[in-house]
């Protein structure tokens, strides 16, 4: 069985273009024009099976949203393969991509910015349908009504504009739009982080119901570990453009192996602060993606780092049980003793 999505060694770099004067410098008596390149994603590989929910977690700047946008081909990846249902779409042009767009749709974080304020709801939901299928207008209208019902809105909402809806309702509209072309994969970039917690629960439940009904796979991007624990089958943890650990959900929460994952899990506040105090308290902040540290990306904040970590970049290695970790500690577990 082919995976719904298979990503191999995805790299996404952005060239910063500050003014000419900022880039110009003297080198050996000659003028030198320097490019500044941000490595937002540095070689990320993973796959998502049909009907599977993979969540990517990490803090701001870790590249999780960039991965989502590169896969949705909002960006053109610098390198790597993105196989969607077997077909590599990493280097297709926008025109060539069009037929594949119906297999993959995106839900965005900000329900206020991701809907055209001048379109009525029925046109917002119908737009991908019109672009993708040769349906007659009567059929489109029927399908829009059915989609709105699926996401918990009713037909009278179809004639309204986005500003007449609350954040949660707008997110429902965005979900209906994504579902309109029957995709197999939905990329959801922080779909509930702009919502109040009671509404967040409604949207998460809706997304789970839709997955069961339509057999959807999700790539779910989030910074919120409790949300991720609720929705994901498998979790990937990102740091500074690298995937540092992936594991099935329960495995990751029960036995996180990468020091960053452990720090992240112990830093998350909990409504039941009964568990033991932070296992790893991180000091300092994430380094700049303009100048990645040598070796391991996490070594500047890692309490265990030793000289090998500065020299050699750890590769993501399968530890069995579906858990993969990119850390030299797995070779020398004795260093992990307190």
């Amino acid at each position, binding site marked *: 069985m082919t995976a719904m999505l298979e990503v191999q060694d995805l790299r996404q770099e952005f060239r910063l273009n500050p003014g000419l004067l900022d880039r110009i410098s003297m080198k050996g008596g000659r003028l030198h024009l320097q490019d500044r390149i941000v490595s937002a994603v540095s070689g990320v590989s993973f796959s998502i099976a049909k009907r599977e929910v993979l969540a990517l977690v990490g803090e701001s700047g870790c590249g999780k949203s960039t991965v989502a946008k590169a896969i949705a081909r909002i960006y053109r990846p610098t390198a790597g393969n993105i196989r969607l249902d077997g077909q590599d779409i990493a280097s297709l042009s926008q025109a060539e991509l069009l037929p594949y767009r119906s297999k993959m749709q995106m839900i965005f974080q900000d329900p206020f910015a991701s809907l055209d304020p001048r379109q009525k709801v029925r046109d917002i939901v119908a737009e991908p349908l019109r672009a993708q299928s040769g349906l007659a207008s009567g059929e489109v209208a029927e399908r829009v009504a059915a989609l709105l019902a699926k996401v918990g809105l009713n037909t009278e909402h179809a004639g309204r504009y986005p500003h007449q809806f609350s954040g*949660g309702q707008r997110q429902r509209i965005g979900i209906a739009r994504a579902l309109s072309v029957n995709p197999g994969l939905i990329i959801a970039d922080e779909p509930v982080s702009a919502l109040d917690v*009671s*509404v967040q629960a409604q949207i*998460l439940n809706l997304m*789970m119901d839709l997955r069961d009904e339509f057999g959807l796979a999700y790539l779910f991007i989030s910074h919120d570990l*409790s949300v991720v624990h609720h929705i994901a089958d498998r979790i990937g943890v990102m740091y500074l453009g690298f995937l540092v650990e992936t594991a099935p959900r329960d495995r990751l929460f029960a036995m996180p192996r990468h020091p960053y994952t452990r720090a992240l899990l112990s830093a998350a506040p*909990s409504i*039941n602060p009964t568990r033991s105090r932070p296992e790893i308290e991180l000091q300092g902040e994430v380094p700049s993606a303009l100048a990645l540290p040598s070796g391991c990306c996490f070594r500047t904040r890692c309490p265990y780092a030793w000289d090998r970590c500065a020299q050699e970049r750890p590769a993501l290695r399968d530890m069995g049980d579906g858990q993969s970790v990119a850390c030299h500690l797995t070779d020398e577990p004795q260093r992990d003793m307190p």
Partner: protein
Amino acid sequence: MTTEMQPLLRVRELRTWFHTFSGIVKAVNGVSFDLAAGEVMGLVGESGGGKSVVGYSLLGLIDPPGKIESGSILFDGEELANAPERRLREIRGREIAMIFQDPMTSLNPVHTVGRQMDEMLRLHTELDKKARRQRCVEMLESVGIARAEERLESYPHQFSGGMRQRVVIAIALLAKPRLIIADEPTTALDVTIQAQILRLMRREIRQQGASLILVTHDLAVVAEMVDKITVLYCGRVVETGPVRQVLEAPAHPYTRGLIDSIPDPAHRLPRLRQIPGTVPDIRALPKGCAFRARCSGAAAICSEVEPSLVARAEGQSAACHFPLVSGETA
């Protein structure tokens, strides 16, 4: 921690309304609470609950069309509701300090951090220049900023978000205020940085013996930070009490719903319990209980009579005609 009998802050029936063209927004509509010296209280609720407006009202930071309509804010025995601006300016910063959500906008981008810190001391203390500088350096060091002496000359944009929030906290604590109001102080920060900042706030505030009102939507942060919790819905207090007690045995269905909406990694359920519906339009609140349309336990009386805050257990009160008994789900 609640050792003193006379509360530091006593808020009674506070009403802050906004007179807009589309009607009166009763953002805060009859809120009462006490805060003892050294006590940490969480003010929680969802958007539109009125929690931030309560914080702003305490400092007299409500601009037209907003207005404190009625009620009393007794701070150490002194009435602050509609106190003259001159007096409020003396109190802000010295007695009551505020930490805002967004560390990007709460510092002035065109002045150095040192100058902004110095301003606080110049306005509110008698210290001379040298002593002020000394105090600024100490304060920056105590919030965990290395090379403090040098960093005083830096501008806000030269700090990261987490570092900027440290500076904001340092400024708030400089004049040794007795009450600090922190409005979503870590919402804009990443989780590992949030953990650092919360630890820092807890330590520094405890050291100074100050009281804290933590305004937030995040119940998990509240669970780890506060002694007492006050839950707001549509401008009214629906429940208040000691934090562990309220989180473990909430009496108001809204509090129960909020708690249940949060996915709990320790007890994963196939579906989250959700609060149905949405927050009603605050300009046209229904008669009776504002929560009744979303409440599964609502009865006839709920659409007639607005419930008042009634003591349930030791220190815990709820505004509900049919309060939940311990362990009951909404």
